């Protein structure tokens, strides 16, 4: 097989993956991705557990250590079959708390402590970097097999450049599809789809090679069995301590590996998928492990003695002249490596960005207020983190130069991440677990792991001097890294696993028992341990009414983006029984908002931001009271009462709002008559006075013409007022005749801007438009719609008080509706007036004589109702902002039927 052809196939495959990811993202954006979020895809995405290490390495492992490789599959199988309830709890917590990573989960559980987030992030980065290096190495090695046919040993052509290309390509893919959206709970559809495809490719590849080996190279299962008996694998003896230790280790790893946590918890879109995964994932693992021994045995028999068993999957087909099959096997290995690296770097980058970059930025930024576009900053920091994580992996690979046994690095990494197990399981099952305990356990476990396993893995003399191995540091014999406390003769891996987890668990337990949890920790502990008891989860959190909803909205917009934030606030307001975009800052709302933000920036940062705005950076007496009350947890039966009370409160609020509205309406009705009188009498005064003057005669030259002009002008003003009133009455009664036709939105806006320019023509307005977005054909009454646009633009020209006035016109399509926002940079409309501006004669400052009678927005509202749309005021846009929303195609006048 020519090397160039291989590179070509590889590129084609990568382009294919890009396409899969791209199309999946596209479908997801259009909301047609149901099958992309299915139990099948979820299960397949879990297969990133099987990296290149398991794809190539398992065969090598079997060739060296017999059936021991099975432990790597046994652990996850036990977890998925037997510990299903633990996974379900993790997934439920992940979804309710909007957890973004394993670091976020542990930080969130222990009082949203960022210190813990940093510790976990560090452990994960240190443990995962060699693992990523390992994947780069496997791709490089497998390239090498093809580049130099006939050699079965370690031959790597220009190692660094291959690895560099792979790392660069993966960084590009991950950044493109891993950081398109912010909110972790709804993202990465493209990545998950690509990974599911890769999962199928690697399974098909390994099974095909297996079938080839069993039925083509050998003469079927019986022959294979005979070969196994004849080979060295048959002599392998089970070492119970290693067997149990490795099974336990892989069981721990499947829930603590950052990438597994990412696909298992963060990317999970439906808890029920776990049900399918609990049997389908073990089945997948079984299929992956089925042919490992046959391939190993045949490889040992076929290939020369020095051949690297880690590459048997490739070299066996190659030695038989099966170039195509070898290519398939290569793509399988390539898939295993790339999918692991992609998910691992997304998971690590999220942690680095949320727990290190964001908190640093929050502390260092100059202004105290939440300023600047946090969204862009978060995305940028994630992108840089991805590049940094892959860069580290590449560096490790380039510096270590590739070490001989693939499996060794994998297991070392497993022990590293297993250090999170006590803090994680303790956190979700033991309310007494505290931050101090978790930090102590994690740190001690990490140090012991590094000292007994990670650093020695570089070899004696590399980092730890040879003398330390033989005699211990400073000659202290019982501190030798491979024989702590004089325990000799133990397998180094099991030795490290045993001591690190023992110290870890002991420190965690003792630290938790001796320290006292903070109120937030207690509350989070409750929420995690009793996650299935939802009512209780609502009880913790924020005090009442300290935060200004508008500033919360502004902050949320910066993090979630304008539209999602507005939609979220609108939903929350509606749930409280309020109209508009600004819900009351109730504890329930603040808790919901915090969870929403946590999905983007992590729990600790979200908590800090809301604390700042809610003016509650420190714990108050109120919190302590709440925690004290928590002992009186007779809440079990009161949960029903709670929901009834909430229902009553909602009804009462709606009634209160209705009543307020009625009272206002009655006042307005009186005011309306008085206003009409005023608006009619004012022009009449001039008309009467000047006509009387003219009747008396005897005026100087030119005066009669001037006064007649005034009379004429005032008469027109009267007519216009009467026209407006009539227009309003027709619109309100729904008897208006609509002239429906197709109209180009962009042209309508042009026309409206031209017409509105007559209002205060001396003002020079900077208009921002998005012409491509405006290229929409609407079916509506264009004249009526233009009337609304003109009114809004004229209002802006009249009332926008900025020295350099600007008007932004933003057009969006959402479903079958078109949204047009008019946003200026003036001081906007005060909150208490926002509900009133659409009422008749509701000129804000009664005195302003700048224009009409204050009927404009009332008419706009009625016009939009007739066009099947709405007009609303958008708070928190940094100026006066109005949103006009209408159907893309208005089929028939919605109000005409009633008329």
């Amino acid at each position: 097989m020519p090397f160039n052809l291989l590179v070509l196939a590889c590129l084609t495959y990568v382009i294919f993956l890009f396409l899969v990811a791209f199309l999946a993202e596209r479908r997801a954006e259009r909301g047609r991705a149901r099958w992309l979020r299915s139990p099948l895809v979820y299960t397949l995405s879990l297969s990133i557990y099987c990296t290149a290490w398991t794809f190539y390495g398992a065969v090598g492992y079997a060739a060296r250590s017999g059936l021991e490789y099975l432990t790597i599959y046994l652990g996850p199988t036990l977890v998925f079959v037997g510990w299903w309830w633990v996974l379900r709890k993790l997934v439920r917590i992940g979804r309710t708390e909007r957890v973004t990573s394993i670091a976020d989960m542990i930080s969130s559980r222990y009082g949203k402590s960022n210190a813990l987030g940093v510790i976990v992030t560090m452990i994960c980065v240190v443990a995962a970097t060699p693992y990523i290096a390992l994947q780069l190495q496997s791709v490089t090695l497998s390239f090498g097999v093809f580049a130099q046919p006939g050699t079965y040993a370690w031959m790597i052509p220009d190692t660094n450049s291959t690895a560099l290309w792979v790392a660069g390509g993966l960084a590009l893919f991950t950044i493109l599809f891993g950081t398109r959206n912010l909110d972790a709970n709804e993202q990465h559809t493209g990545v998950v789809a690509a990974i599911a495809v890769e999962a199928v490719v690697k399974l098909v590849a390994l099974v095909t090679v297996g079938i080839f080996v069993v039925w083509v190279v050998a003469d079927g299962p019986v022959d294979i069995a005979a070969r196994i008996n004849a080979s060295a694998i048959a002599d392998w003896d089970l070492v119970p301590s290693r067997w149990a230790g490795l099974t336990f280790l892989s069981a721990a790893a499947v829930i603590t590996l950052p990438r597994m946590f990412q696909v298992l918890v963060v990317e999970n879109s439906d808890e029920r998928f776990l049900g399918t995964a609990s049997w389908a994932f073990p089945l997948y693992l079984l299929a992956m492990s089925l042919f490992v021994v046959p391939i190993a045995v045949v490889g040992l028999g076929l290939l020369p003695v020095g051949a690297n068993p880690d590459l048997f999957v490739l070299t066996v087909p190659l030695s038989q002249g099966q170039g195509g099959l070898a290519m398939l096997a290569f793509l399988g290995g390539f898939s295993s490596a790339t999918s692991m690296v992609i998910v691992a770097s997304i998971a690590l980058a999220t942690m680095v960005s949320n727990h290190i970059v964001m908190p640093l930025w929050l502390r260092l930024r100059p202004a105290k207020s939440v300023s600047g576009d946090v969204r862009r900053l978060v995305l940028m920091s994630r992108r840089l983190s991805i590049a940094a994580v892959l860069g580290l992996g590449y560096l490790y690979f380039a510096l270590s130069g590739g070490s001989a046994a693939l499996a060794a690095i994998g297991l070392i990494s497993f022990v590293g991440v297993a250090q999170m197990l006590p803090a994680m399981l303790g956190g979700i099952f033991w309310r007494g677990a505290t931050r101090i305990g978790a930090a102590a356990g994690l740190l001690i476990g990490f140090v012991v792991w590094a000292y007994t396993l990670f650093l020695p893995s570089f070899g004696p003399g590399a980092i730890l001097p040879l003398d330390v191995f033989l005699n211990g540091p400073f000659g202290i014999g019982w501190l030798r890294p491979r024989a702590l406390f004089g325990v000799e003769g133990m397998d180094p891996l099991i030795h490290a696993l045993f001591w690190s987890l023992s110290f870890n668990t002991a420190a965690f337990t003792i630290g938790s028992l001796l320290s006292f949890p903070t109120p937030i920790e207690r509350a989070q502990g409750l929420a995690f341990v009793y996650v299935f008891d939802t009512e209780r989860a609502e009880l913790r959190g924020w005090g009442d009414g300290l935060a200004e909803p508008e500033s919360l909205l502004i902050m949320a917009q910066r993090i979630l983006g304008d539209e999602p934030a507005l939609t979220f606030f609108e939903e929350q307001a509606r749930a409280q029984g309020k109209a508009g975009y600004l819900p009351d800052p109730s504890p329930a709302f603040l808790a919901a908002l915090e969870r929403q933000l946590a999905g983007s920036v992590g729990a600790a940062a979200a908590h800090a931001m809301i604390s700042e705005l809610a003016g509650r950076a420190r714990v108050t007496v109120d919190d302590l009271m709440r925690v004290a009350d928590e002992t009186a947890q007779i809440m079990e039966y009161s949960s029903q009462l709670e929901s009834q009370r909430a229902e009553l409160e909602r009804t009462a609020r709606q009634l209160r709002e209705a009543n307020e509205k009625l009272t206002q309406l009655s006042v307005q009705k009186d005011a309306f008559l008085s206003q009409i009188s005023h608006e009619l009498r004012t022009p009449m005064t001039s008309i009467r006075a000047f006509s009387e003057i003219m009747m008396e005669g005897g005026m100087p030259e030119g005066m009669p013409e001037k006064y007649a002009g005034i009379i004429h002008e005032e008469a027109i003003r009267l007519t216009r007022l009467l026209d407006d009133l009539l227009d309003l009455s027709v619109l309100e009664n729904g008897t208006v005749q609509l002239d429906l036709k197709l109209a180009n939105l962009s042209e309508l806006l042009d026309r409206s801007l031209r017409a509105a320019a007559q209002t205060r023509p001396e003002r020079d307005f900077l208009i921002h438009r998005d012409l491509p977005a405006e290229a929409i054909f609407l079916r509506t009454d264009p004249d009526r719609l233009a009337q609304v646009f003109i009114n809004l633009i004229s209002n802006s020209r009249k009332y926008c008080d900025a020295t350099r006035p600007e008007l932004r016109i933003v057009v969006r399509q959402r479903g079958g509706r078109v949204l047009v926002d008019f946003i200026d940079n003036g001081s906007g409309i005060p909150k208490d007036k926002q509900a009133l501006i659409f009422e008749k004669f509701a000129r804000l400052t009664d005195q302003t004589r700048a224009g009409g009678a204050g009927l404009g927005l009332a008419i706009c509202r009625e016009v939009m109702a007739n066009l099947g749309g709405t007009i609303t005021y958008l708070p928190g846009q940094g100026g006066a902002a109005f949103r006009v929303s209408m159907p893309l195609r208005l089929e028939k006048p919605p109000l005409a039927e009633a008329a």
Partner: protein
Amino acid sequence: MTHHAMLIEDEPNIAEAIRFLLNREGWQVTTLGDGGVAEAEVRARRPDLVILDLMLPGRSGLEILQSLRADPATAELPVMMLTAKGQGRDREAAERAGASLFMAKPFSNTEFVAAARSLLGVA
């Protein structure tokens, strides 16, 4: 002696009509379109008569009237209140605030001039 009337009215056409009528009587007329500066102007220029519209930009006519009445220097100053609303409530409010005379818009020129003259004690 020339009488000096200060007119505080934001509708330019109405102000123009009133200025014409009073000029024709031989009076000097100062017009202001904004309520915010009215009080200071009255103190500075000490007119013989103030004609005050009820609804003004800057500050309402009622407020201006109240502060004029609260100050002994202007407590006795003749003030004619104009309003286009013409409701009983407005009239009462104006009288409570101390308006010397209340005139509803639209008015007859003859009545208006007669009222202004009577406030100044001009026959």
